[in-house]
Protein backbone atom coordinates (compact mmCIF):
# COMPACT_ATOMS: atom_id res chain seq x y z
CA UNK A 1 0.00 0.00 0.00
CA UNK A 2 1.13 3.53 -0.58
CA UNK A 3 1.05 6.47 1.77
CA UNK A 4 -0.90 9.54 0.80
CA UNK A 5 -2.22 12.69 2.37
CA UNK A 6 -5.69 11.28 3.06
CA UNK A 7 -4.75 8.30 5.19
CA UNK A 8 -3.87 9.90 8.51
CA UNK A 9 -7.36 10.14 9.91
CA UNK A 10 -9.97 7.45 10.05
CA UNK A 11 -12.53 10.16 9.50
CA UNK A 12 -11.05 11.50 6.29
CA UNK A 13 -12.20 10.28 2.92
CA UNK A 14 -9.83 10.25 0.00
CA UNK A 15 -10.93 12.02 -3.22
CA UNK A 16 -11.61 8.56 -4.63
CA UNK A 17 -14.12 7.96 -1.85
CA UNK A 18 -11.98 5.53 0.11
CA UNK A 19 -11.19 5.33 3.80
CA UNK A 20 -7.54 4.42 3.76
CA UNK A 21 -7.28 3.65 7.45
CA UNK A 22 -9.98 1.02 7.09
CA UNK A 23 -8.13 -0.47 4.15
CA UNK A 24 -4.91 -0.50 6.12
CA UNK A 25 -6.79 -2.32 8.87
CA UNK A 26 -7.80 -4.93 6.31
CA UNK A 27 -4.10 -5.24 5.47
CA UNK A 28 -3.52 -6.28 9.06
CA UNK A 29 -5.92 -9.14 8.49
CA UNK A 30 -4.03 -10.18 5.37
CA UNK A 31 -0.83 -10.29 7.39
CA UNK A 32 -2.25 -12.71 9.92
CA UNK A 33 -1.79 -16.43 9.41
CA UNK A 34 -4.31 -18.28 7.31
CA UNK A 35 -7.75 -19.50 8.31
CA UNK A 36 -9.98 -21.55 6.04
CA UNK A 37 -13.70 -22.30 6.39
CA UNK A 38 -15.90 -24.69 4.44
CA UNK A 39 -19.56 -25.54 4.74
CA UNK A 40 -21.73 -28.49 3.78
CA UNK A 41 -25.42 -29.14 4.23
CA UNK A 42 -24.83 -30.37 7.76
CA UNK A 43 -21.46 -29.12 9.00
CA UNK A 44 -19.04 -26.23 9.00
CA UNK A 45 -15.31 -26.78 9.37
CA UNK A 46 -12.58 -24.25 10.17
CA UNK A 47 -8.95 -25.12 9.59
CA UNK A 48 -6.27 -22.74 10.82
CA UNK A 49 -2.53 -22.39 10.65
CA UNK A 50 -1.05 -21.51 13.99
CA UNK A 51 1.91 -19.18 14.10
CA UNK A 52 4.62 -19.12 16.73
CA UNK A 53 5.81 -15.77 18.03
CA UNK A 54 9.32 -17.12 18.40
CA UNK A 55 11.07 -20.42 18.74
CA UNK A 56 10.75 -20.21 22.49
CA UNK A 57 7.06 -19.44 22.70
CA UNK A 58 3.89 -21.42 22.38
CA UNK A 59 1.52 -20.93 19.51
CA UNK A 60 -0.97 -18.16 19.03
CA UNK A 61 -4.56 -19.17 19.62
CA UNK A 62 -6.54 -19.15 16.37
CA UNK A 63 -9.84 -20.74 17.36
CA UNK A 64 -12.20 -19.36 19.97
CA UNK A 65 -15.26 -21.26 21.13
CA UNK A 66 -18.11 -18.82 21.53
CA UNK A 67 -21.02 -20.96 22.66
CA UNK A 68 -21.97 -24.59 22.15
CA UNK A 69 -22.95 -23.85 18.58
CA UNK A 70 -20.50 -21.19 17.37
CA UNK A 71 -16.74 -21.15 16.93
CA UNK A 72 -14.56 -18.49 15.29
CA UNK A 73 -11.20 -18.49 13.56
CA UNK A 74 -9.24 -15.26 13.61
CA UNK A 75 -6.65 -13.65 11.37
CA UNK A 76 -4.95 -10.43 12.32
CA UNK A 77 -4.40 -8.73 15.65
CA UNK A 78 -4.97 -11.38 18.29
CA UNK A 79 -5.62 -8.85 21.03
CA UNK A 80 -8.43 -7.29 19.00
CA UNK A 81 -9.78 -10.77 18.39
CA UNK A 82 -9.89 -11.38 22.13
CA UNK A 83 -12.04 -8.31 22.60
CA UNK A 84 -14.44 -9.42 19.89
CA UNK A 85 -14.61 -12.98 21.16
CA UNK A 86 -15.39 -11.74 24.66
CA UNK A 87 -18.15 -9.60 23.22
CA UNK A 88 -19.54 -12.53 21.26
CA UNK A 89 -19.49 -14.73 24.32
CA UNK A 90 -21.42 -12.29 26.46
CA UNK A 91 -23.92 -11.64 23.67
CA UNK A 92 -24.63 -15.34 23.14
CA UNK A 93 -25.03 -15.95 26.86
CA UNK A 94 -27.29 -12.96 27.19
CA UNK A 95 -29.44 -14.13 24.31
CA UNK A 96 -29.74 -17.59 25.84
CA UNK A 97 -30.67 -16.06 29.18
CA UNK A 98 -33.35 -13.85 27.66
CA UNK A 99 -34.86 -16.19 25.07
CA UNK A 100 -33.86 -19.67 26.22
CA UNK A 101 -32.49 -20.51 22.77
CA UNK A 102 -29.09 -20.49 21.10
CA UNK A 103 -28.40 -17.20 19.37
CA UNK A 104 -28.98 -17.25 15.60
CA UNK A 105 -25.57 -16.99 13.97
CA UNK A 106 -26.50 -14.24 11.54
CA UNK A 107 -27.73 -12.03 14.37
CA UNK A 108 -24.49 -12.50 16.24
CA UNK A 109 -22.37 -11.70 13.20
CA UNK A 110 -24.46 -8.61 12.50
CA UNK A 111 -23.79 -7.35 16.01
CA UNK A 112 -20.07 -7.97 15.65
CA UNK A 113 -20.05 -6.19 12.31
CA UNK A 114 -21.86 -3.21 13.82
CA UNK A 115 -19.30 -3.11 16.58
CA UNK A 116 -16.50 -3.08 14.01
CA UNK A 117 -18.22 -0.33 12.04
CA UNK A 118 -18.46 1.96 15.04
CA UNK A 119 -14.73 2.24 15.29
CA UNK A 120 -14.49 3.25 11.64
CA UNK A 121 -16.55 6.33 12.27
CA UNK A 122 -14.99 7.81 15.39
CA UNK A 123 -11.97 10.05 15.34
CA UNK A 124 -10.94 8.77 18.74
CA UNK A 125 -10.88 5.11 17.79
CA UNK A 126 -9.08 2.87 15.39
CA UNK A 127 -10.65 0.00 13.45
CA UNK A 128 -10.39 -3.56 14.74
CA UNK A 129 -7.44 -5.14 12.98
CA UNK A 130 -8.88 -8.63 12.83
CA UNK A 131 -11.03 -10.63 10.46
CA UNK A 132 -13.16 -13.48 11.71
CA UNK A 133 -14.46 -16.62 10.12
CA UNK A 134 -17.56 -17.42 12.14
CA UNK A 135 -18.80 -21.01 11.97
CA UNK A 136 -22.07 -21.90 13.61
CA UNK A 137 -25.32 -23.82 13.38
CA UNK A 138 -28.79 -22.64 14.20
CA UNK A 139 -32.30 -23.65 13.24
CA UNK A 140 -31.59 -22.64 9.64
CA UNK A 141 -28.70 -25.03 9.39
CA UNK A 142 -24.94 -24.51 9.27
CA UNK A 143 -23.45 -21.11 8.46
CA UNK A 144 -20.06 -19.69 7.61
CA UNK A 145 -19.58 -15.94 7.82
CA UNK A 146 -16.64 -13.63 7.34
CA UNK A 147 -16.32 -10.30 9.13
CA UNK A 148 -14.04 -7.42 8.18
CA UNK A 149 -12.54 -4.47 10.03
CA UNK A 150 -14.70 -2.31 7.80
CA UNK A 151 -17.87 -3.63 9.40
CA UNK A 152 -18.88 -5.61 6.33
CA UNK A 153 -19.85 -9.21 6.67
CA UNK A 154 -20.70 -11.91 4.18
CA UNK A 155 -21.97 -15.43 4.26
CA UNK A 156 -19.97 -18.01 2.36
CA UNK A 157 -19.96 -21.61 1.28
CA UNK A 158 -16.18 -21.58 1.53
CA UNK A 159 -13.68 -18.86 2.37
CA UNK A 160 -10.08 -18.25 3.38
CA UNK A 161 -8.49 -15.24 5.04
CA UNK A 162 -4.98 -14.31 6.13
CA UNK A 163 -1.57 -14.74 4.60
CA UNK A 164 -1.49 -16.46 1.19
CA UNK A 165 -5.20 -17.10 1.45
CA UNK A 166 -5.61 -16.46 -2.26
CA UNK A 167 -4.05 -19.86 -2.99
CA UNK A 168 -6.59 -21.50 -0.73
CA UNK A 169 -9.39 -19.55 -2.34
CA UNK A 170 -8.31 -20.64 -5.78
CA UNK A 171 -8.43 -24.25 -4.68
CA UNK A 172 -11.82 -23.72 -3.03
CA UNK A 173 -13.24 -22.06 -6.11
CA UNK A 174 -12.48 -25.23 -8.01
CA UNK A 175 -13.96 -27.59 -5.46
CA UNK A 176 -16.68 -25.81 -3.52
CA UNK A 177 -19.55 -27.29 -5.54
CA UNK A 178 -18.71 -30.72 -4.15
CA UNK A 179 -18.82 -29.55 -0.57
CA UNK A 180 -22.57 -29.40 -0.05
CA UNK A 181 -23.07 -33.16 -0.02
CA UNK A 182 -19.76 -33.99 1.59
CA UNK A 183 -19.68 -36.04 4.78
CA UNK A 184 -17.96 -34.56 7.78
CA UNK A 185 -14.66 -36.40 7.31
CA UNK A 186 -14.51 -35.36 3.66
CA UNK A 187 -15.30 -31.81 4.65
CA UNK A 188 -12.50 -31.70 7.20
CA UNK A 189 -10.12 -33.11 4.64
CA UNK A 190 -11.01 -30.45 2.07
CA UNK A 191 -10.51 -27.71 4.67
CA UNK A 192 -7.09 -29.08 5.51
CA UNK A 193 -6.20 -29.45 1.84
CA UNK A 194 -7.20 -25.85 1.25
CA UNK A 195 -5.11 -24.81 4.23
CA UNK A 196 -2.16 -26.67 2.82
CA UNK A 197 -2.33 -24.42 -0.21
CA UNK A 198 -1.43 -21.47 1.99
CA UNK A 199 1.88 -23.02 2.95
CA UNK A 200 2.55 -24.77 -0.31
CA UNK A 201 4.43 -21.88 -1.81
CA UNK A 202 7.09 -21.92 0.86
CA UNK A 203 9.56 -24.79 0.75
CA UNK A 204 10.29 -24.86 4.46
CA UNK A 205 6.82 -25.20 5.74
CA UNK A 206 4.22 -27.87 5.91
CA UNK A 207 1.17 -28.66 7.96
CA UNK A 208 2.01 -30.48 11.17
CA UNK A 209 0.16 -31.46 14.29
CA UNK A 210 1.78 -28.52 16.01
CA UNK A 211 0.68 -25.78 13.65
CA UNK A 212 -2.76 -26.97 12.57
CA UNK A 213 -5.98 -26.58 14.48
CA UNK A 214 -9.43 -27.62 13.27
CA UNK A 215 -12.92 -26.86 14.54
CA UNK A 216 -16.14 -28.56 13.49
CA UNK A 217 -19.76 -27.60 14.19
CA UNK A 218 -22.62 -29.74 13.01
CA UNK A 219 -26.38 -29.99 12.92
CA UNK A 220 -26.36 -33.64 13.89
CA UNK A 221 -26.30 -32.85 17.59
CA UNK A 222 -22.58 -33.45 17.85
CA UNK A 223 -22.12 -29.88 19.03
CA UNK A 224 -18.76 -28.25 18.55
CA UNK A 225 -15.40 -29.98 18.49
CA UNK A 226 -11.88 -28.63 18.34
CA UNK A 227 -9.11 -30.87 17.02
CA UNK A 228 -5.51 -30.10 17.87
CA UNK A 229 -2.18 -31.88 18.19
CA UNK A 230 -2.45 -35.62 17.68
CA UNK A 231 -6.09 -35.42 16.63
CA UNK A 232 -5.20 -33.69 13.37
CA UNK A 233 -2.62 -36.31 12.40
CA UNK A 234 -4.95 -38.44 10.24
CA UNK A 235 -5.90 -35.48 8.08
CA UNK A 236 -2.31 -34.44 7.57
CA UNK A 237 -1.35 -37.98 6.67
CA UNK A 238 -4.15 -38.10 4.15
CA UNK A 239 -2.72 -34.99 2.47
CA UNK A 240 0.34 -36.86 1.26
CA UNK A 241 -1.84 -39.63 -0.05
CA UNK A 242 -4.11 -37.30 -2.00
CA UNK A 243 -2.90 -35.80 -5.26
CA UNK A 244 -1.63 -32.29 -4.65
CA UNK A 245 -3.79 -29.51 -6.11
CA UNK A 246 -0.70 -27.50 -7.06
CA UNK A 247 2.98 -28.32 -7.31
CA UNK A 248 4.40 -28.35 -3.85
CA UNK A 249 7.05 -30.17 -1.91
CA UNK A 250 6.07 -33.63 -0.76
CA UNK A 251 8.31 -34.19 2.16
CA UNK A 252 7.16 -37.61 3.16
CA UNK A 253 8.79 -39.05 6.20
CA UNK A 254 9.36 -35.57 7.51
CA UNK A 255 5.96 -35.54 9.03
CA UNK A 256 5.14 -34.37 12.46
CA UNK A 257 8.07 -34.13 14.79
CA UNK A 258 10.52 -32.15 12.76
CA UNK A 259 8.20 -29.18 12.76
CA UNK A 260 10.13 -26.24 11.43
CA UNK A 261 8.56 -23.00 12.52
CA UNK A 262 6.58 -21.58 9.64
CA UNK A 263 8.70 -19.04 7.82
CA UNK A 264 6.92 -15.77 8.22
CA UNK A 265 7.15 -13.57 5.19
CA UNK A 266 4.72 -11.33 6.96
CA UNK A 267 4.85 -9.65 10.35
CA UNK A 268 3.75 -11.63 13.29
CA UNK A 269 0.16 -11.21 14.28
CA UNK A 270 1.21 -12.05 17.81
CA UNK A 271 3.18 -8.87 18.21
CA UNK A 272 0.17 -6.90 17.14
CA UNK A 273 2.23 -4.88 14.72
CA UNK A 274 1.25 -4.40 11.14
CA UNK A 275 4.71 -3.27 10.05
CA UNK A 276 6.23 -5.24 7.18
CA UNK A 277 9.14 -7.45 8.16
CA UNK A 278 11.83 -9.36 6.33
CA UNK A 279 11.56 -13.10 5.89
CA UNK A 280 12.36 -14.79 9.17
CA UNK A 281 14.43 -17.90 8.48
CA UNK A 282 13.47 -20.47 11.08
CA UNK A 283 15.60 -23.55 10.92
CA UNK A 284 16.18 -26.28 13.40
CA UNK A 285 13.88 -28.21 15.66
CA UNK A 286 10.95 -26.20 16.85
CA UNK A 287 10.07 -28.19 19.92
CA UNK A 288 7.23 -26.09 21.16
CA UNK A 289 4.28 -26.70 23.36
CA UNK A 290 1.00 -25.96 21.68
Amino acid at each position, binding site marked *: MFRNQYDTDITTYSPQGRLHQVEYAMEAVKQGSASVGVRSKTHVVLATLKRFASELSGDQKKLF*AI*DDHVVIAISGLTADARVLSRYM*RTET*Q*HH*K*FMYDEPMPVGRLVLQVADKCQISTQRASKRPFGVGLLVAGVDENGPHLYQTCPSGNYFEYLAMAIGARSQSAKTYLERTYTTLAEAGVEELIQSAVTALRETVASSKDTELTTKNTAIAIVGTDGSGMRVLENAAVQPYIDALDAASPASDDEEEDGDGDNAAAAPAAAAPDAAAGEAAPAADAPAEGPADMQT
Partner: protein
Amino acid sequence: MDALGLLRPGASVSGLPAAHTPGAATGFALGDHAGRAQAAPAAEPGVVASTASGPLQRRFQPYQNNGGTVLAVAGKGFCVVASDTRLGLGYSIPSRKVSRILKMTDKVVLASSGMQADMLTLHKTLRMRLVQYQQTHQKHMSLTAASQMLSNMLYTRRFFPYYTFNVLGGIDENGEGWAYGYDAIGSHEKVSAVCSGTGQTLIQPVLDNQIEFKQQWGAPKVDLSLEATVELIRDAFTSAGERDIYTGDFVEICKITKDGVDVEEFQLKLD
Protein backbone atom coordinates in the same frame (compact mmCIF):
# COMPACT_ATOMS: atom_id res chain seq x y z
CA MET B 1 -35.88 -17.72 60.05
CA ASP B 2 -39.40 -18.25 61.33
CA ALA B 3 -40.38 -21.22 59.21
CA LEU B 4 -43.71 -21.73 60.94
CA GLY B 5 -44.88 -18.29 60.01
CA LEU B 6 -44.59 -19.18 56.37
CA LEU B 7 -46.88 -22.19 56.49
CA ARG B 8 -50.12 -20.43 57.24
CA PRO B 9 -52.10 -20.29 54.02
CA GLY B 10 -52.39 -16.79 52.74
CA ALA B 11 -49.66 -15.67 55.09
CA SER B 12 -47.73 -12.82 53.67
CA VAL B 13 -44.01 -12.80 53.58
CA SER B 14 -43.12 -9.19 53.97
CA GLY B 15 -39.82 -8.41 52.46
CA LEU B 16 -40.12 -4.73 53.10
CA PRO B 17 -41.19 -3.00 56.29
CA ALA B 18 -44.60 -1.35 55.96
CA ALA B 19 -44.37 2.38 56.21
CA HIS B 20 -46.86 4.61 58.03
CA THR B 21 -48.21 1.82 60.19
CA PRO B 22 -47.93 2.40 63.91
CA GLY B 23 -46.05 -0.43 65.49
CA ALA B 24 -44.70 -1.64 62.19
CA ALA B 25 -41.74 -3.96 62.30
CA THR B 26 -38.52 -2.08 62.29
CA GLY B 27 -35.76 -3.48 60.21
CA PHE B 28 -35.99 -6.21 57.70
CA ALA B 29 -37.88 -9.42 58.36
CA LEU B 30 -38.73 -12.32 56.13
CA GLY B 31 -41.83 -13.86 57.57
CA ASP B 32 -44.80 -12.66 59.52
CA HIS B 33 -44.39 -12.34 63.22
CA ALA B 34 -46.92 -14.22 65.27
CA GLY B 35 -49.36 -11.82 66.80
CA ARG B 36 -49.35 -9.36 63.95
CA ALA B 37 -52.66 -8.81 62.26
CA GLN B 38 -53.40 -11.14 59.39
CA ALA B 39 -53.43 -9.43 56.03
CA ALA B 40 -56.40 -10.10 53.77
CA PRO B 41 -55.42 -11.54 50.40
CA ALA B 42 -55.94 -9.06 47.57
CA ALA B 43 -56.94 -9.60 43.94
CA GLU B 44 -53.57 -8.55 42.53
CA PRO B 45 -50.72 -10.96 43.16
CA GLY B 46 -47.89 -9.45 45.09
CA VAL B 47 -50.00 -6.69 46.62
CA VAL B 48 -51.57 -7.12 50.03
CA ALA B 49 -54.27 -4.92 51.48
CA SER B 50 -53.99 -4.80 55.19
CA THR B 51 -57.21 -4.10 57.02
CA ALA B 52 -56.53 -4.91 60.61
CA SER B 53 -54.47 -2.23 62.23
CA GLY B 54 -55.26 1.28 61.08
CA PRO B 55 -56.48 2.55 57.72
CA LEU B 56 -56.53 0.40 54.58
CA GLN B 57 -53.15 0.30 52.97
CA ARG B 58 -51.37 -1.59 50.27
CA ARG B 59 -48.00 -3.21 50.52
CA PHE B 60 -45.83 -4.59 47.76
CA GLN B 61 -45.28 -8.26 48.47
CA PRO B 62 -42.54 -9.49 46.18
CA TYR B 63 -42.23 -12.94 47.68
CA GLN B 64 -44.23 -16.13 47.88
CA ASN B 65 -43.26 -19.52 49.18
CA ASN B 66 -43.88 -22.38 46.79
CA GLY B 67 -42.80 -24.96 49.32
CA GLY B 68 -40.80 -28.06 48.61
CA THR B 69 -38.02 -29.90 50.33
CA VAL B 70 -34.46 -30.36 49.11
CA LEU B 71 -31.60 -32.26 50.61
CA ALA B 72 -28.03 -33.32 49.96
CA VAL B 73 -26.23 -36.22 51.64
CA ALA B 74 -22.55 -36.93 51.05
CA GLY B 75 -20.79 -40.22 51.52
CA LYS B 76 -17.51 -41.87 50.70
CA GLY B 77 -16.85 -40.95 47.10
CA PHE B 78 -20.42 -39.98 46.33
CA CYS B 79 -23.12 -37.42 47.04
CA VAL B 80 -26.87 -37.65 46.66
CA VAL B 81 -28.97 -34.55 46.00
CA ALA B 82 -32.72 -34.95 46.07
CA SER B 83 -35.82 -32.79 45.97
CA ASP B 84 -39.54 -33.20 45.73
CA THR B 85 -41.34 -31.78 42.71
CA ARG B 86 -44.50 -30.28 44.16
CA LEU B 87 -45.21 -26.61 43.56
CA GLY B 88 -47.51 -25.31 46.29
CA LEU B 89 -49.29 -22.01 46.78
CA GLY B 90 -51.44 -21.62 49.85
CA TYR B 91 -53.63 -24.71 49.99
CA SER B 92 -53.34 -25.31 46.24
CA ILE B 93 -51.02 -27.26 44.02
CA PRO B 94 -50.24 -25.35 40.81
CA SER B 95 -47.97 -28.16 39.60
CA ARG B 96 -47.00 -31.66 40.64
CA LYS B 97 -43.85 -31.77 38.59
CA VAL B 98 -41.41 -28.92 38.68
CA SER B 99 -37.69 -29.53 38.82
CA ARG B 100 -35.80 -27.83 41.59
CA ILE B 101 -32.51 -29.27 40.51
CA LEU B 102 -29.73 -27.74 38.44
CA LYS B 103 -27.00 -30.02 37.21
CA MET B 104 -24.08 -27.62 37.22
CA THR B 105 -21.33 -29.99 36.12
CA ASP B 106 -20.79 -33.74 36.05
CA LYS B 107 -19.70 -33.45 39.66
CA VAL B 108 -21.84 -30.68 41.15
CA VAL B 109 -25.62 -30.49 41.57
CA LEU B 110 -27.70 -27.71 43.10
CA ALA B 111 -31.21 -27.99 44.50
CA SER B 112 -33.27 -24.97 45.55
CA SER B 113 -36.57 -24.67 47.40
CA GLY B 114 -38.52 -21.55 48.20
CA MET B 115 -39.91 -19.24 45.56
CA GLN B 116 -40.07 -20.77 42.13
CA ALA B 117 -39.51 -17.53 40.21
CA ASP B 118 -36.38 -16.68 42.14
CA MET B 119 -35.17 -20.25 41.80
CA LEU B 120 -35.54 -20.14 38.02
CA THR B 121 -33.73 -16.84 37.69
CA LEU B 122 -30.99 -17.94 40.04
CA HIS B 123 -30.49 -21.12 38.03
CA LYS B 124 -30.43 -19.22 34.73
CA THR B 125 -27.83 -16.80 36.07
CA LEU B 126 -25.77 -19.68 37.41
CA ARG B 127 -25.85 -21.38 34.03
CA MET B 128 -24.41 -18.27 32.42
CA ARG B 129 -21.67 -18.01 35.01
CA LEU B 130 -20.77 -21.67 34.55
CA VAL B 131 -20.32 -21.22 30.80
CA GLN B 132 -18.25 -18.08 31.33
CA TYR B 133 -16.03 -19.88 33.81
CA GLN B 134 -15.61 -22.80 31.45
CA GLN B 135 -14.65 -20.53 28.56
CA THR B 136 -12.17 -18.50 30.57
CA HIS B 137 -10.53 -21.25 32.54
CA GLN B 138 -10.83 -24.09 30.02
CA LYS B 139 -12.21 -26.41 32.67
CA HIS B 140 -15.41 -27.05 34.57
CA MET B 141 -16.09 -25.42 37.91
CA SER B 142 -15.07 -27.46 40.92
CA LEU B 143 -17.38 -28.07 43.87
CA THR B 144 -15.51 -25.63 46.09
CA ALA B 145 -15.50 -22.92 43.43
CA ALA B 146 -19.20 -23.40 42.75
CA SER B 147 -20.05 -23.31 46.44
CA GLN B 148 -18.23 -20.01 46.90
CA MET B 149 -19.69 -18.50 43.76
CA LEU B 150 -23.23 -19.33 44.82
CA SER B 151 -22.62 -17.71 48.17
CA ASN B 152 -21.28 -14.57 46.49
CA MET B 153 -24.18 -14.42 44.08
CA LEU B 154 -26.70 -14.69 46.89
CA TYR B 155 -24.98 -12.03 48.94
CA THR B 156 -24.89 -9.51 46.09
CA ARG B 157 -28.65 -9.56 46.54
CA ARG B 158 -28.34 -8.93 50.26
CA PHE B 159 -30.98 -6.21 50.29
CA PHE B 160 -33.52 -7.88 48.02
CA PRO B 161 -32.68 -11.54 48.37
CA TYR B 162 -33.40 -14.48 46.16
CA TYR B 163 -36.07 -16.25 48.16
CA THR B 164 -34.37 -19.59 47.73
CA PHE B 165 -33.13 -22.17 50.20
CA ASN B 166 -30.30 -23.98 48.49
CA VAL B 167 -28.34 -27.13 48.99
CA LEU B 168 -25.32 -27.95 46.90
CA GLY B 169 -23.79 -31.39 46.64
CA GLY B 170 -21.04 -33.05 44.70
CA ILE B 171 -17.58 -34.52 44.49
CA ASP B 172 -14.62 -32.23 45.14
CA GLU B 173 -11.28 -32.32 43.39
CA ASN B 174 -10.00 -34.99 45.77
CA GLY B 175 -12.87 -37.31 44.93
CA GLU B 176 -14.58 -36.79 48.27
CA GLY B 177 -18.30 -36.22 48.53
CA TRP B 178 -19.50 -33.08 50.27
CA ALA B 179 -22.72 -31.12 50.76
CA TYR B 180 -23.28 -27.43 51.42
CA GLY B 181 -26.31 -25.78 53.01
CA TYR B 182 -27.19 -22.14 52.36
CA ASP B 183 -29.49 -19.52 53.70
CA ALA B 184 -31.21 -16.95 51.48
CA ILE B 185 -28.33 -14.50 51.59
CA GLY B 186 -25.45 -16.85 51.04
CA SER B 187 -24.28 -18.00 54.45
CA HIS B 188 -23.01 -21.48 53.79
CA GLU B 189 -21.38 -24.40 55.52
CA LYS B 190 -19.75 -27.57 54.30
CA VAL B 191 -21.44 -30.60 55.88
CA SER B 192 -22.16 -34.24 55.31
CA ALA B 193 -25.92 -33.95 55.23
CA VAL B 194 -28.27 -31.01 54.98
CA CYS B 195 -31.96 -30.44 54.28
CA SER B 196 -33.80 -27.23 53.40
CA GLY B 197 -37.33 -26.18 52.67
CA THR B 198 -40.72 -26.88 54.17
CA GLY B 199 -39.75 -30.37 55.28
CA GLN B 200 -36.48 -29.26 56.80
CA THR B 201 -37.58 -29.52 60.42
CA LEU B 202 -38.87 -33.03 59.80
CA ILE B 203 -35.89 -34.45 57.92
CA GLN B 204 -32.79 -32.67 59.22
CA PRO B 205 -32.91 -34.34 62.66
CA VAL B 206 -33.14 -37.74 60.99
CA LEU B 207 -30.10 -36.99 58.85
CA ASP B 208 -28.18 -35.75 61.88
CA ASN B 209 -28.96 -38.96 63.69
CA GLN B 210 -28.54 -41.50 60.91
CA ILE B 211 -25.75 -40.01 58.80
CA GLU B 212 -23.69 -38.17 61.36
CA PHE B 213 -24.66 -40.38 64.31
CA LYS B 214 -25.43 -37.40 66.50
CA GLN B 215 -27.25 -38.04 69.76
CA GLN B 216 -26.14 -41.63 69.57
CA TRP B 217 -23.61 -42.76 72.12
CA GLY B 218 -21.72 -45.99 71.70
CA ALA B 219 -23.12 -46.63 68.26
CA PRO B 220 -20.53 -47.57 65.63
CA LYS B 221 -20.09 -44.80 63.08
CA VAL B 222 -20.31 -46.62 59.79
CA ASP B 223 -20.03 -45.09 56.34
CA LEU B 224 -23.29 -45.64 54.53
CA SER B 225 -23.10 -47.02 51.04
CA LEU B 226 -24.71 -45.22 48.11
CA GLU B 227 -27.61 -47.68 48.08
CA ALA B 228 -28.21 -47.36 51.82
CA THR B 229 -28.13 -43.57 51.52
CA VAL B 230 -30.69 -43.59 48.74
CA GLU B 231 -32.93 -45.88 50.80
CA LEU B 232 -32.71 -43.52 53.73
CA ILE B 233 -33.54 -40.56 51.52
CA ARG B 234 -36.57 -42.33 50.06
CA ASP B 235 -37.85 -43.06 53.55
CA ALA B 236 -37.19 -39.48 54.61
CA PHE B 237 -39.21 -38.05 51.75
CA THR B 238 -42.01 -40.53 52.21
CA SER B 239 -42.27 -39.62 55.88
CA ALA B 240 -42.00 -35.89 55.29
CA GLY B 241 -44.65 -36.15 52.59
CA GLU B 242 -47.06 -37.52 55.17
CA ARG B 243 -46.76 -34.61 57.54
CA ASP B 244 -45.82 -31.64 55.35
CA ILE B 245 -48.54 -30.56 52.95
CA TYR B 246 -46.05 -28.86 50.65
CA THR B 247 -43.97 -31.99 50.09
CA GLY B 248 -45.24 -34.74 47.85
CA ASP B 249 -46.00 -35.90 44.29
CA PHE B 250 -42.56 -36.99 43.01
CA VAL B 251 -38.96 -37.04 44.18
CA GLU B 252 -35.97 -36.47 41.92
CA ILE B 253 -32.83 -38.15 43.21
CA CYS B 254 -29.43 -37.30 41.68
CA LYS B 255 -26.61 -39.65 42.53
CA ILE B 256 -23.20 -38.08 41.93
CA THR B 257 -20.17 -40.31 41.67
CA LYS B 258 -16.88 -40.08 39.86
CA ASP B 259 -18.70 -41.52 36.85
CA GLY B 260 -21.10 -38.60 36.64
CA VAL B 261 -24.65 -37.85 37.63
CA ASP B 262 -27.37 -40.49 37.57
CA VAL B 263 -30.96 -39.33 38.02
CA GLU B 264 -33.82 -41.46 39.27
CA GLU B 265 -37.34 -40.57 40.21
CA PHE B 266 -39.96 -42.10 42.40
CA GLN B 267 -43.49 -41.23 43.28
CA LEU B 268 -44.89 -39.99 46.56
CA LYS B 269 -48.49 -39.66 47.60
CA LEU B 270 -50.43 -37.14 45.61
CA ASP B 271 -52.49 -35.88 48.54
